[in-house]
């Protein structure tokens, strides 16, 4: 129930009439710290480690290749 509520809330935020932000007003959004993946190598390694120690993986794009990680 909590998950469904959170998901519904997120979708509502996406679909709602958010304020229009003109391209010249997007300076803060373009800062390095605002990137989805600030460091590609760190992100790849962490994602591989978690996937090899937990029963879940994925969610950040299509799945990549596998490994025999124990």
């Amino acid at each position, binding site marked *: 129930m909590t*998950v469904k509520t*959170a*998901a519904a809330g*997120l*979708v509502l*935020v*996406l679909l709602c009439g*958010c*304020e*229009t*932000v003109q*391209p*010249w*007003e*997007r*300076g*803060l*959004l*373009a*800062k*390095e*710290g*605002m*990137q*989805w*993946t*600030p*460091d*590609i*190598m*760190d992100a*790849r*390694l*962490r994602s591989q*480690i*978690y996937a090899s*120690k*937990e*029963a*879940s*993986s*994925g*969610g*950040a*794009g*299509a*799945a*990549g*290749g*596998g*490994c*025999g990680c*124990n």
Partner: protein
Amino acid sequence: MAAQKNDRNPALMALTSSALLLPAYQTVQADAPPEFAEAGMQYSKYKEDDITGKKAFGGGSERFDIDVAQFHLLAPVLDDWSVAVDVAWEDMSGASPWFVGESASGDPKVIMSGASIEDNRTEVSVTTRYYFDRGNGGLSLTYSDEDDYESKAAALDGAFNSADGMTTYSGAISYSDDHIDPTQGAVPTNTTSASKDIYSAWAGVTRIVSKRAIVRFGLSYTYRDGFLTDPYKFRDSRPDERKEWVASGGYRRYFEEQNSALHVDYRYFNDDWDVQSHTLDVAWVWDYSPAVTYTPFIRYYTQHEAEFFNNLAQRDQRYFADDYRLSAFGAFSYGLRASRKIQNWEVSVDAERYQTDESWGVFSGEESPGLVDFWRYGIGLNYIFK
């Protein structure tokens, strides 16, 4: 630091319009190739805590210790293309849980694999990307080779932004052809040679919600078909199919007074093995100065056990497993990343601690004696060719 508003500088407009279109898994700009080539390398040390004599037969034992070296190159090519190359080398050694037995007092205890397992892995990934006015499309090829495992994967992805640049729609599909030939000698194996295929599709939408905040939402489906049993576990027999669904969300907000960005990411995972999980990642990216950035982060993970998991594997059932990774548990990890820019160079260091406990999870289940805690340290160096 106050934001410069109403600045119609074309360079800023180009930068901002492209930076907003980043799909969750990309670091390249969405509608223009990177302006400069960049290269980076990183060395990381991964070390699992020893398992104690209280949880293992035969006294304590060392677990995995892995050294990882990574290389990354991203370069613009011609006017509308880019090429990225990622390489990783891993050298691992140590022991892993072989099976779980019952002690004289009735407590489950792990029997470790005994002889230290040695393995090396090399992964090479090449991505070419084409950029057009309102988005991009990419093709990735990845090859991973270990002593006992080979994986060949391909992925196609694309991103397309709305006319006002407020929304970006993304999608990706991938296929992986994996093959395992378990190393013989350390422990008896469940197979001598086997294969599996992995098919995956993902769709996402990213939306600007204000001058300081952006959100994203994604859905993915993954189908695994083939040998999914762990070949090195003594008591392990898993279905040869697995269907996984993931819903994810992310939020980024910039705080001008603190010169900081808040990162919040959530993932819900569900599959037909009765595993479900929640993952919450929170990070605070603090620009201490124009050259120095500190990023403390915390991650919480909790999972429901697989329907065929038992500490003492039920070998009279069709499917069974005592693998701690299929048990119910909760995990906290936390760490700090620091980076400093020096002209075109950037050096970074980071450290992370990962700890697990059955009682930290929101799903109840048997506590596996094999649960793992680990440390990870890394140092990286990046260079921008400008």
